């Protein structure tokens, strides 16, 4: 489908094993980025994100109860807003949020269950419980950045990013908000390692956020269409995304960021991204440069 009005991408906020921000992301795209972390308890190599830069946006005291999943999302959102030249607080009711994640807050999910198994039912942690909900990251962004528009969290395996873009378009097209912060988030932890099994490659964690707007105005790139399931030709050649960012169902958002970055740098469009989910099949997403 063609979006009724193309979605303007006005800010990018990538976080991953490569670091954080557009420069680090672009460097990883050019030079590659081997996995620099590991997963407990197996020690499997993985692309792990450094979340220390979050302290430059929010005081540590404000995020002391936020888990890794929430911190990834917060940092990605703050970076995207900063890149768009927007404030990172008091966002108000005209900004909405869509988060896409394949596995959700796996760290808190596991911690909640572990705590109950180890200490008993009466000692379930209320903090782990609240953080284990998939929408906990959206809740933290809303709370800490003062975002009062609608918040939507989507989980659809490898097509989470594609599916989430539908929600973003819906919020903008219905006129509920002027701007949507959209992000793919994936946390790599023990559950990730268990699901990974013995297959080759490396899991990755990260967050890739975009600021999306409609109407006239400058933009890094424009999202013009989406097909679920995809039927069009994919002319962006397979990329070595996995080598640079690791694999994870929420990480196709990095491809989106990469495409927007390349269009912003002058690569002629359109670029068509192809995503595949083993159970749902393919999806495509088409981006153009700004005129």
């Amino acid at each position, binding site marked *: 489908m063609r979006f009724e009005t193309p979605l303007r991408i006005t800010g990018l906020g990538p976080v991953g094993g490569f670091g954080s921000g557009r420069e680090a992301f672009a460097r990883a795209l050019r030079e590659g980025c081997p996995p620099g972390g590991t997963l407990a308890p197996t020690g499997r190599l993985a692309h792990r994100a450094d979340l220390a830069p979050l302290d430059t946006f929010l005081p540590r005291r404000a995020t002391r109860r936020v888990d890794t999943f929430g911190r990834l999302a917060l940092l990605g959102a703050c970076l995207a807003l900063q890149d768009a030249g927007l404030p990172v607080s008091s966002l108000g009711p005209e900004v909405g949020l869509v988060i896409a994640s394949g596995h959700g807050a796996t760290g808190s999910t596991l911690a909640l*269950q572990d705590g109950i198994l180890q200490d008993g039912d*009466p000692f379930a942690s209320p903090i782990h419980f609240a953080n284990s*909900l998939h929408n906990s990251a959206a809740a933290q962004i*809303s*709370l800490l950045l003062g*975002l009062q528009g609608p918040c939507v969290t989507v989980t*659809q395996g490898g097509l989470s990013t594609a599916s989430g873009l539908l929600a973003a378009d819906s919020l903008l097209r219905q006129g509920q908000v002027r701007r949507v912060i959209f992000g793919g988030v994936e946390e790599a932890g023990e559950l990730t390692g268990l699901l990974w099994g013995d297959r080759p490659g490396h899991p990755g964690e990260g967050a890739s956020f975009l600021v999306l707007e409609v109407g006239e105005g400058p933009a890094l790139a424009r999202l013009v269409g989406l097909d679920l399931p995809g039927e069009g030709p994919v002319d962006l050649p397979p990329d070595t995304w996995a080598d640079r960012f690791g694999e994870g169902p929420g990480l196709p958002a990095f491809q989106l960021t990469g495409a927007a970055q390349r269009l912003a740098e002058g690569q002629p469009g359109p670029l068509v991204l192809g995503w595949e989910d083993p159970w749902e099949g393919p999806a495509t997403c088409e981006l153009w440069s700004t005129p």
Partner: protein
Amino acid sequence: MNPVAITGLGCLCAAGSSLEEAMTALLDGRREPRPPVRFQTTLPVPPLAFELPDFEEGAFPRTSALALAAARQALEDAGLAPGDLHGARVGVIIGTSIGATLCDETFLQARRAGLTPEPVSLRRILEANPARLISRTLGLRGPCQTLVNACASGTDALGLGADWIRAGLCDVVLAGGADELSRITTCGFSAMRIADPTPCRPFDRDRQGLNLGEGAAVLVLEAEAFRTGRRAPVQARILGYGAASDAHHPTAPHPEGEGLGRAIRQALAQAGLAPTDLDFVNAHGTATPDNDRVEGVALARELPGIPYFSTKGGTGHTLGAAGALEAAFTVGSLLRREIPGSLGLVHPDPALPAPPVTRRTAIPGRAALSQSLAFGGGNAVIILGRGDA
């Protein structure tokens, strides 16, 4: 905004295994919360819950199986066989909380004991997430989305699903919500100190908290061209949808219900209705002290004089399914032109600006609003109208 036709409804909950059964029980004021039978806890005070002990999930994750059962029921109610949808663009959007969580105690216990079991159950949760299971099992072709917006998931699924129809993305959308009763979630709510060990009492002076429940509801939404092509009658219509966030607290609602107020006003604007056009409000009404107080304040401010009630006294709080179940009950009430009293209510809280409906009451059956408030400060509102109104 153009209204979106609802041609079929499927509903499974402790009040009944169909919308007809559930409406009869709710209107009669019948309810029977019990200790769960599918699992045990060592909580010092055994919980009460609204369980579906006879529902068999088979090989699928329970939440997904509930969603699939509700979807099949909804299609049958709409007069649609799965074969009728071949060649059509059919979207599936289901809200859930538990249904997307990678949780399996048996697997983790084995790991902690030093074993190395294959994560079969975890992979099955991913493979068969609620929307995906419905879409694949019924052979549907179209967008597929599982929403995880906590307690507002079901309402958000209906609102966004309606937009897929208006945007021309789909001919038909199966939209709804589902959630199972889970041991881990039961422990989690107990830890938050918002569960009532006795049958819950929404909006009651003596309310202590919620009872959990399980269930699913799916509504068949149809584009006008598809619906008129097969001459399907309209049972109801989605007239408006609104959603907004409190940005106040990770789990507690804004004390003045500011986010809820914005969502209500958005939905009314989208529907082109004034508050006086509404016959009633199906409130979120979880029976927690905070939620019910906030809803009372917001409703008195935004929709003064409009009758309201909670059905969670008859179904428990079904989390991701709640918004969809309550939308189904809202349609059921419009079609029957009567609403139930707020189940579980004995002594209306005098601190509420206006008391909820306490007994079965006749209504004109024009339009009504159903609202959901979620952990994380989400608020979602949907406005529904009778099909022939």
